[in-house]
């Protein structure tokens, strides 16, 4: 698939600030791929998401230089509501992502579909399917205002993927989730990838990014300092100096290589580590 998102020399500053938050960024994202975005707090990850979705600058105002293109068209040229069909956006803070007008979760998840005028029979089908997938169907009759943080986060994800957008922008969807919940969210996102959707995911849990993402973007102080295949970025030890946390397996692999253990490649996931370290041990034994 071709390019779906393109940044051309993008520099952006929020209103009333002197320093730009995003500095001179240029890159392209291809359709059907899963992109992990990492970087320290305040490095501009959320702002990058807002730029893709067009909230910056149309909602936040501020100053944008360069161009952000979605399907070849600048985000500033899209009409109101037009991008909401194309791009699903899950916000970082799950607590303000409910419509505030529905009294059951079921209706809350259905809210977007109602706005798009989907027939009720189809709404019901899709909502049930997505609620099963995100494991919240048992909460369907609860009031959206009475949820735990983790439940809220699943609801936020569910009410966006139910819209079936081609592009998903997801900002730290697992901050409130336990390890099991986190794993299940990644499974869901992987499911989205199978449906040929483009996924842009901001996530601090580097081991999971290592396992699922095709490519990783590393942000630092508003600059894009790396964008490459996951295995390449996450084995780059020089990134440690930039304050990027690398996966445990990559660090282990590098240490092993340094101490003379010949590994065929540096692993980033557990499965890869088992494979290459196993190989090395077997070879060493002979």
């Amino acid at each position, binding site marked *: 698939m071709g390019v779906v998102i393109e940044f051309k020399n993008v520099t952006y500053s929020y209103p009333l600030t002197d320093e730009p938050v995003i500095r001179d960024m240029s890159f392209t994202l291809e359709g059907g791929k899963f992109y992990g975005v990492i970087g320290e707090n305040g490095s501009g990850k959320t702002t990058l998401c807002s730029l893709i*979705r067009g*909230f910056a600058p149309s*909602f936040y105002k501020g100053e944008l230089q360069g161009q952000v293109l979605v399907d070849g068209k600048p985000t500033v040229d899209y009409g*109101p*509501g037009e991008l*909401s*069909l194309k*791009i*699903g*956006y899950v*916000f970082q*803070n799950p*607590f*303000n*992502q*409910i*419509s*505030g*007008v*529905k*009294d*059951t979760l*079921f*209706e809350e998840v*259905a*809210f*977007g*579909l*109602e*706005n*798009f*005028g*989907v*027939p*009720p*029979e189809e*709404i*019901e089908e899709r*909502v*049930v399917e997505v609620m099963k997938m995100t494991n919240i169907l048992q909460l*369907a*009759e609860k009031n959206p*205002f009475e949820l735990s943080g983790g439940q809220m986060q699943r609801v936020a994800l569910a*009410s*966006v993927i139910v*819209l079936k957008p081609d592009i998903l922008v997801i900002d730290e969807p697992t901050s409130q989730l336990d390890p099991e919940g986190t794993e299940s969210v990644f499974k869901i996102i992987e499911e989205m990838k199978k449906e040929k959707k483009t996924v842009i995911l901001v996530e601090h849990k580097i081991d999971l990014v290592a396992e699922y993402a095709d490519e990783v973007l590393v942000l630092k102080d508003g600059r894009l300092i790396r964008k490459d295949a996951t295995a390449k970025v996450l084995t780059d030890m020089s990134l440690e100096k930039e304050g990027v946390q690398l996966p445990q397996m990559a660090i282990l692999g590098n240490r092993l290589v340094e101490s003379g253990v010949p590994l065929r490649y540096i692993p980033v996931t557990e499965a890869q580590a088992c494979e290459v370290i196993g190989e090395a041990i077997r070879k060493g034994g002979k």
Partner: protein
Amino acid sequence: MWREKLQLHKTNPIAALYPSCKFLILCLYAVCSFVLGSIGVGEGDYPLFLIPWFFVVPILSAASGVWKRFVHAFRAVLFIAALILVVQALLIPSEKVVWQLGFLRIYQAGLKSGLSLSFSILNIAGMFVWLFQTTENKEFTRALEDSGMNYKAAYVFISSLQMIDVLGKNSRTIMNAQRARGVETEGNMIVRAKAFFPSLVPLIVGAITSSEERVLTLESKGFDVNGPKTSLFELKKSGKEPLAGGIAIVVTLAVIVGRIVVWVL
């Protein structure tokens, strides 16, 4: 099957009336209150007809099957009305003193104006309480949208209703936090007031910042998309609306005619 579950199945015929019909009843009731309040009784010209007329509100609520909720919500109104009655009766002076105890004097003009104001409040606020206790938020939304009101205006209306609940809960959370920090929140009025105002600040600031994200959430869920929307919840007329509306109109006409007769005589 889910869609079926989301519908309301009201058994009480009054509560099941279409919201606009209930609103019509409310308006006519207010007209009647106004007309009845203009009839002066006795030498003090007291609006005494308002008092029996007020009993319609609790009776209607009981008949609608929401007696408990009505009483719960109505207590505050009752308190305010009583306060107004006392203050007005004691403070608006006139030549005629109806009753005197020591330095406390109840004046005729004060009593008249106090009765009129407090019972008008009881009548009209009481009817609103009845309307809101018998109608779910989603019924209002649908009714407003069906009446051709702009969906954005309907949203503002309905989300403010929901917000009252949520802010109430938040303020309790904040109060608890204040108490944990050693701020006194219980006790007499002055202590409570002192605790109340600091609580307002995080409450309001929180409401404003969350509204920004709310706007973006709505936008990303297609709230702004032009074109027809659909709804899982269907609002149906119960079929008794003409009857209920008819009764309300007849009663109102009777009250107006009665008023004119009193006038002429």
